[in-house]
C-alpha cells in the first residue's frame, strides 16, 4: 500500500476499520467531527454500522452494549464530551469490556474553546470516572503513529478486556500528513470472546455482564483482580521513545503534538552545543516511570524539563518517577495556545544558564 494524504481524524477512522472495528457510535463535537463523518461514510462501505447517538452519554452506552456482544467498537469525542463519557468508561472498566475511546482534546475547563490542548491528561490517566480503575492511554504524535497506535489500542482492549483511550488534540485531529496503512496481523483478530452476551443459542447457561456486586468481600476480590490486570498492563504495555538522549545531560519530557515541537527545539539546542534530548511517553498510562528514572540515573541527568499544553499535569508523573533525584522544571501553555519552537528553545537555554534577561 502506498502513502495517502489524509486528515488526522480520518486516519483514526480508517485505522480502526483496518483493525477490524466495524461499529462506531458517535456524536458531533469540534475538533473531532471529521472522524464521525468519516465513519458515517466509510462504515457502510465495509458492511459495518455507524450510528449517531443523541448524546455522548448515549454513545458510550451504545458502545457498552456492542462491546457486551463481543464486537470491536469505538466512539470518539473531545474534552467536554469526553467528560460525559466518563461514567460509561467506569462501567466498561468494571465490567471488563473492551472498547476504544478517542479524545481529540481541546482547550478547557468548561466549554473552553476548540483549539488544541493537553489539559485532559489527569482525566484520562487517573481513571477519570468513579472507582478504582485505569484505562490504557496511547498518545500518538504523528499521523503515521495514529495508524499504528489505533490498531494497538484494539489489540490491548481485547487482550486485557479493558477500555483503551486514544488521546490526541486539535492539531493531530485537524492536520494532514501522508500515511501508509498496513495490513493487520492475523493474531490481531484472534481474541476469543466466550464471555459475550450474544444469546446462548445452545451454548450453555446464560451469561451476565455487570459491574454490580452488593457483597463487600466479593467486590473487593473483583477489584483485586482488576488491579492484577493493571499490574500486568504496567509490566507489558509501556511505550516510550527517546530522541538524542544517548549523551544528554538535560532531558525534555513531552508527548503528542508538543513532542514534535520539542524535537525541533532539541535540534536547535544541539546545534548550539547543548547536550539535550527528548523523552516521549507514548503510553501515558502505564506511564514510563521506571524508564525515565533509570535514564536519569544512568545519564546522571542534570535537569529535566516537562513541556505540556496544560498548566502542568504530566509533570506530576515525571516528578513521581524521579522521586527528587533530578530537578524537574515545567513549561506550559494552555487555553489552546501552542508553544513555539523558540519558546521551548529559550526554556532549554534556561536549564543551562538559569533565568535569562
Amino acid at each position: 500500500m502506498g502513502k495517502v494524504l489524509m486528515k488526522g481524524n480520518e486516519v483514526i477512522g480508517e485505522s480502526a476499520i483496518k483493525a477490524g472495528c466495524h461499529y462506531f457510535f458517535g456524536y458531533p463535537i469540534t475538533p473531532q467531527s471529521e472522524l464521525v463523518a468519516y465513519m458515517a461514510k466509510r462504515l457502510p462501505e465495509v458492511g459495518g454500522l455507524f450510528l449517531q447517538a443523541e448524546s455522548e452519554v448515549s454513545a458510550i452506552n451504545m458502545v457498552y452494549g456492542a462491546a457486551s456482544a463481543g464486537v470491536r467498537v469505538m466512539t470518539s469525542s473531545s474534552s467536554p464530551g469526553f467528560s460525559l463519557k466518563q461514567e460509561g468508561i467506569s462501567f466498561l472498566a468494571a465490567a471488563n469490556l473492551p472498547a476504544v475511546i478517542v479524545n481529540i482534546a481541546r482547550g478547557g475547563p468548561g466549554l473552553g474553546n476548540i483549539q488544541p490542548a493537553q489539559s485532559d491528561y489527569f482525566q484520562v490517566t487517573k481513571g477519570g470516572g468513579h472507582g478504582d480503575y485505569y484505562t490504557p492511554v496511547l498518545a500518538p504524535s504523528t499521523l503515521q503513529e495514529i495508524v499504528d497506535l489505533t490498531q494497538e489500542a484494539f489489540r490491548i482492549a481485547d487482550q486485557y478486556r479493558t477500555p483503551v483511550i486514544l488521546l490526541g488534540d486539535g492539531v493531530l485531529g485537524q492536520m494532514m500528513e501522508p500515511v501508509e496503512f498496513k495490513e493487520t496481523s492475523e493474531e490481531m483478530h484472534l481474541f476469543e470472546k466466550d464471555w459475550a452476551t450474544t444469546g446462548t443459542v445452545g451454548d450453555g447457561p446464560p451469561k451476565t455482564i455487570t459491574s454490580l456486586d452488593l457483597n463487600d468481600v466479593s467486590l473487593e476480590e473483583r477489584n483485586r483482580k482488576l488491579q492484577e490486570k493493571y499490574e500486568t498492563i504496567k509490566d507489558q504495555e509501556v511505550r516510550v521513545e527517546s530522541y538524542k538522549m544517548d549523551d544528554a545531560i538535560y532531558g525534555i519530557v513531552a508527548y503528542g503534538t508538543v513532542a514534535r515541537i520539542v524535537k525541533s527545539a532539541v535540534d536547535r539546542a544541539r546545534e548550539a552545543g547543548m547536550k539535550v534530548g527528548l523523552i516521549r511517553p507514548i503510553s501515558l498510562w502505564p506511564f514510563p516511570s521506571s524508564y525515565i528514572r533509570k535514564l536519569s540515573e544512568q545519564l546522571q541527568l542534570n535537569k529535566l524539563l516537562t513541556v505540556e499544553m496544560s498548566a502542568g499535569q504530566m509533570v506530576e508523573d515525571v516528578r513521581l518517577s524521579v522521586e527528587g533525584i533530578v530537578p524537574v522544571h515545567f513549561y506550559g501553555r494552555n487555553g489552546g495556545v501552542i508553544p513555539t519552537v523558540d519558546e521551548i528553545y529559550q526554556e532549554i537555554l534556561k536549564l543551562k544558564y538559569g533565568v535569562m534577561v
Partner: protein
Amino acid sequence: MKAVFERTSGLIDRETHYCPGCTHGIIHRLVGEVLEELDALEQTVGVASVGCSVLSYHYFNCDMTQAAHGRAPAVATGLKRVLPKERLIFTYQGDGDLASIGMGEIVHAAARGENITVIFVNNAIYGMTGGQMAPTSLLGQKTATTPEGRAAQTQGLPIRVSEMLATLDGASYIERVSTHDVPHVIKAKKAIKKAFQNQKDEKGFSMVEILSTCPTNWGLNPEESMQWVKDEMVPYYPLGVYKDHSYKGDGV
C-alpha cells in the same frame, strides 16, 4: 398426577429479593413465560437497569447485560445493532430509571424506531433508594422527598410516558397495562407477548408500560397496594393501546 401449572423455564429457579406484594415478581414471570412460549430464550439478551430490578439478571433465564442508570435503551441499541437480527433484545426498567434520568435514551430509542422491546414498570416511586418522588409520582403522593405530598407548584406534574412516546412517529407499539388483578395480569401478558412478537416481525420500537405496586414505600399492605393502583394510578394513567402502527410497515 397431571401437572396443571409449572414454573416457567424463562426464569431461573431461585428466590427473588423483591418485597412481599411487589408486582415485579408477576411481571418477571410474564416476561419469562412469553420468552418461553416464543421459544426465544436462547435468542434473547436482556438489559437490566438501575433500581429494584437491577438484579433481574439473577432471575431471567437468558443472557443479560446490566446498564448504567437510565441508559438501558442505549445499551440495548448497541446490542441490537451488532447482533444477528434474530436476536431479541429487551430492557426492563422502572419509572425512575426510564422516565427521569433515562428520558433522553428512551425518547431517542423510540424516535429511531429501534427494534427493541421495553418493559417499563411504573410504580410511581423510587423503590430501591427508599421511596423518593419519581416523575410518575401522583399529585398529593407522600414520598421521602415530598413529605407533605407532591404539589404541582413546587414539584410539577406527573409524566404520562406512554402518551408522550406515542406522539413519536418512530414508536411502533405502545400499550399501558396493569397488574392489580388477575384479568389485568392476563391482559398484561398479551401486551408483553405482542411487544416481543413485534420485534420478531421487525416492526420497530415496542414498549409496554405496566402499572405496578410498591407496598414498602407506599406504606400500604399488599392488598391495599393493589387497590391503590386501581383507585389512584389507573385514573391518572389510563390503560390501553396508545400506538399500534409501524412506520416500517407490517414487518417482513
